[in-house]
């Protein structure tokens, strides 16, 4: 096993992908607990589609992908949050509209400029080759910021997740924390989507939270377990992908799905007793 990892890490692109991926998995899992409980998990899905549109445009214009995608997706996050909370179009329908439009824009722009090619495929389903070393630096810095902000605001995030009206009544600025979560989610998604792919990145947000909730009964434990599960699953997924040449993003999702099933069964057994 050790020799497999030695071989795996002898490729510098693998080192980069694992570094960025682990950092992103951790952030996504922490944010995911709050998003899933607030019934906002589809926002993650919507944002990744917007990210795809932004990346395609950046690619077509020969601009640095992260510098375009991060601001665009952050703006989209604020917008999606707003319409999920108060609008005449229902939140899930609005997310559907925005996601499909963003995908359509991305595909059209790419086919007009470079033609539908391997790039599109790697945006859709992820690629471990996508990371440059400057991407790694940006990703690690942003992940650390996400993690620290999350830690500092942990109690307030708990309060707003559990009971928005009580939190508001006791003077927590609920809007600010909702925005903060949306903002951090947007950054996390953009960072992760090039490894995991547009179609698969939202699994990093949803799976670890749901998996942990099968077994654990306190918010803190669910958080800690989500973080650990997410990073472990990512690592195992990458190893599997390296060993059997399976697509990286898909392998990570499959490992997550397997762990989810395992935890569901354990949860059922515990509750039966």
């Amino acid at each position: 096993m050790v020799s497999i990892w030695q071989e795996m890490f002898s490729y510098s692109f693998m080192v980069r992908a694992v570094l960025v991926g682990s950092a992103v998995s951790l952030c996504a899992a922490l944010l995911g607990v709050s998003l899933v409980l607030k019934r906002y998990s589809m926002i993650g899905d919507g944002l990744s589609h917007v990210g795809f549109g932004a990346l395609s445009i950046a690619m077509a214009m020969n601009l640095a992908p992260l510098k375009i995608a991060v601001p665009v997706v952050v703006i989209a996050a604020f917008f999606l949050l707003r319409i999920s909370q108060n609008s005449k179009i229902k939140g899930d329908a609005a997310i559907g509209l925005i996601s499909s439009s963003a995908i359509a824009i991305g595909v059209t722009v790419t086919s007009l400029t470079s033609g539908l090619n391997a790039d599109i495929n790697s945006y859709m389903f992820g690629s471990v080759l996508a990371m440059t070393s400057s991407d790694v630096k940006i990703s690690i810095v942003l992940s650390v910021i996400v993690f620290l902000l999350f830690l500092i605001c942990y109690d307030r995030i708990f309060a707003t997740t559990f009971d928005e009206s009580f939190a508001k009544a006791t003077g927590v600025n609920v809007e600010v924390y909702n925005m903060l979560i949306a903002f951090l989610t947007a950054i996390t998604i953009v960072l992760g989507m090039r490894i995991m792919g547009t179609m698969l990145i939202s699994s990093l947000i949803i799976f670890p939270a749901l998996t942990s909730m099968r077994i654990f009964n306190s918010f803190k434990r669910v958080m800690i377990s989500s973080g650990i599960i997410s990073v472990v699953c990512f690592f195992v997924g990458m190893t599997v992908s390296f060993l059997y040449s399976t697509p990286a993003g898909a392998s990570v999702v499959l490992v997550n799905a397997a762990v989810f099933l395992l935890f569901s069964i354990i949860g059922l057994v515990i509750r039966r007793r």
Partner: protein
Amino acid sequence: MAILSCKNLNVQYDNQVALKDVNFDLEDGDYLCIIGDNGSGKSTLMKSILGLVTPKSGSIQYGAQLKNHDIGYLPQQTIVQRDFPASVYEVVLSGCLNKRGWRPFYSKEEKQRAINNLKKLKIEHLKNKCYRDLSGGQQQRVLIARALCASEKILLLDEPVTGLDPVTTKHLYDIIEELNRDYKMSIIMVTHDMNSGLEHATKILRLNKEVVFYGTPDEYLCFTNSCHHIGAVKHG
């Protein structure tokens, strides 16, 4: 001394009038029941008091004894909470958030305060239980304990007995009465349950967009039997 006074309060949603010229004073230690039909503005009044709704005109003034956000609130349960993985202790502790300012973690006193309130409501044994595994009555006690962490002076309850069985309902009313009697907390409760309102409260406020009646339960009985000889009874 008034702990809360509502002056010419007007609230509108879009173009719908929700509350019109609401005036009343709540004295320290009062137990107020807000009653009225659906859509009469009960919840809106509650939200205005909590600062969740901005009034169109008029004001709600808090007595000097209530510093910023020194209000305990028992909201109606939401769907989110039904399957929420949180321990009882975590939920109760989150009530201390309003006193914390910008400190990132809870202090020892705040943790002790949470424990004390668990004891006060006789749910200390549930401390490490998961909130979603509790019965409806136990969940309400947990949320009251959380509200007590936020304030020891005033407690607002939004239809607290909805969905509870009669025995649990009685226990809940007993707790609220105890808080009012023994701990001198002011209580404001929105309720559909007129009878227990009349039994426990010291003041009744009947709303129908505007104040239909404000006074003591005895006066209210008199009012509903349409004997209007008590001049000061009818406001609005």
